[in-house]
């Protein structure tokens, strides 16, 4: 190989961005096409430094916008290479059209999203409004709660996305600043082990295979469009979870670190639970443990590890015996219940027995979710569980100034 290997410590103190950069370096990507935006900028900044220092063999394309960044990824992926990029917020919004192109063309691109609020008002801090945009875009979506997860899930994302039975692009999301700029201990893999876990990129229907000409990005009207979309949905619904399970198992065997499609904390005998994503999952897990010890609340936490495909069946198993569930959305639904409220409600609607469910909007624009806030949610849940019905409004806002906001 024409590039140098990097010696890493067993535990490096990395922020989420650095963790993503190293994972991208270790899998030896053919083409990274990128346009920097806060807070994901350091991912491609570090990556281009690794390239300049001789640790990467691939191409790095600096383009003029995020739309061009993903377009470059699409071209390179269709040509037959391992491809990735990173973005945030407005950049992701500008990229949106091309996300649908990538998944519709079945191109296994990996996109690191560092979550950030969408303007206006302009804000560079973390919330989930940008990544909520991608829900129906046909991408597989992994969510990280800390820098270690960012590192590990990148390898898993490449492995799953590039599997010839899957051939779909994958997102790895992390919380802007709370993960991307927070340094924590990350257990590393050496370069060879990391690369070998993902394996050599095996092209499929690549445009540079001139002996087997193929067409990408075709037009299909009412005659075939539906069949393409139906097949893509079918593969997301039926083929992706088995491959994710396989990858999680293989990764556990390699590292001892276990990931699950739905993560559970203190759920064995839980009566009430919070469902959320990102760093909040871990904060809530700590609060659940404390409330069990101090207030006797049988509290648990459900973390969404894979947002797409949506783990409908897996979640049914986890929530079916609960008395009350709080869904926490870090995105303004702007005139509706939050996404997690709606999707979790869908999960339980046909169960014989179902928990009382309410919704909290929190943390917009990076507003802190404190342990005190989380404890208040668990106390609401306890009251709902004891009453067997809602004792609170369906939707409440946490940590916003002024009179308490609640709806429905």
């Amino acid at each position: 190989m024409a590039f140098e290997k990097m010696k890493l410590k067993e535990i490096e103190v990395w922020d989420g961005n650095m963790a993503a950069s190293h994972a991208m370096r270790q899998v030896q990507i053919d083409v990274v096409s990128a346009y920097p935006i806060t807070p994901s900028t350091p991912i491609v900044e570090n990556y281009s430094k690794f390239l300049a220092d001789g640790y990467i063999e691939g191409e790095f394309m600096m383009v003029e916008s995020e739309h061009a960044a993903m377009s470059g990824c699409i071209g390179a992926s269709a040509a037959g290479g391992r491809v990735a990029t990173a973005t945030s917020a407005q950049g992701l919004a500008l990229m949106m059209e091309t996300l649908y192109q990538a998944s519709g063309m079945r191109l296994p691109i990996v996109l690191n999203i560092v979550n950030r609020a969408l303007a206006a008002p302009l804000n560079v801090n973390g919330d989930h409004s940008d990544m909520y945009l991608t829900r129906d875009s046909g991408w597989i979506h992994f969510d990280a709660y800390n820098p270690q997860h960012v590192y590990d899930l990148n390898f898993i994302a490449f492995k799953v996305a590039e599997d010839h039975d899957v051939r779909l692009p994958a997102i790895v999301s992390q919380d802007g600043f709370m993960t991307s700029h927070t340094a924590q201990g990350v257990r590393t893999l050496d370069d060879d082990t990391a690369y070998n876990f993902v394996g050599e990129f095996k092209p499929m229907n690549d445009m540079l295979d001139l002996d087997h000409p193929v067409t990408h990005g075709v037009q299909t009207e009412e005659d075939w469009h539906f069949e393409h979309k139906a097949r893509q949905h079918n593969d997301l619904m039926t083929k992706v979870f088995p491959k994710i399970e396989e990858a999680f198992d293989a990764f556990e065997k390699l590292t001892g670190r276990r990931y699950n499609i739905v993560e559970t904390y203190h759920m064995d005998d839980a009566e009430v639970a919070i469902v959320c994503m990102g760093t909040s999952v871990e904060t809530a897990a700590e609060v659940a443990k404390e409330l069990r010890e101090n207030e006797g609340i049988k509290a648990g936490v459900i973390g969404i590890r894979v947002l797409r495909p949506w783990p409908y069946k897996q979640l049914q198993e986890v929530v079916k015996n609960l008395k009350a569930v709080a869904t926490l959305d870090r995105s303004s639904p702007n005139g509706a219940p939050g996404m997690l409220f709606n999707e979790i409600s869908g999960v339980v609607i046909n169960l014989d027995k179902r928990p009382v469910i309410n919704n909290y909007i929190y943390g917009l624009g990076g507003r802190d979710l404190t342990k005190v806030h989380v404890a208040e949610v668990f106390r609401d849940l306890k009251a709902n569980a004891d009453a067997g019905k809602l004792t609170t409004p369906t939707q409440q806002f946490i940590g916003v100034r002024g009179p308490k906001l609640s709806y429905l």
Partner: protein
Amino acid sequence: MLEIRWHSRAGQGAVTGAKGLADIIASTGKHVQAFAFYGSAKRGAAMTAYNRVDDKEILNHEKFMKPDYVFVIDPALVYTTDVTINHKDNTKYIITTHMSTDELKASQPKLADKEVYTVDCIKIAQETIGRPIPNTPMLGAFMKISGMYDIEFFKDKMKGVLSKLPQKIIDANMQAIQRAYDEVK
């Protein structure tokens, strides 16, 4: 859980200092977090950085903190921001100033009943490193006040953190750390 809040101006190296400290502590097997409040802070703007240290994995990602230690690496921040916010009864303060601890307390009554230590990290940095970057000397003072690590062990680890810098700068940082360790009161 040990928690530290840094008060600094953007550009004075609080984030680098917090990450460097985290690096050293992590190398001894403890779990760490180092983060900062960003925004669109420009060079010179008041900002805060944070460390968490624990024997077990740190799950708490809230930004709110009641610190065990407060580091102030710019002398004027004692007057322009509330460095005692969210304090505990036993919060310890290490503050960069040219004044004595008594003079400082007299000039800022909020600190009067607090456990305050003073050291002139700015002067030390200027005289050793040649630039007013007070982050590494602050860590030298912290080693003295906390007794966290033997100062020689700490300096040795710090050399590793700074290893990409020219030898002259590394040596100057070692002097700065030692001087702050010796001079903090």
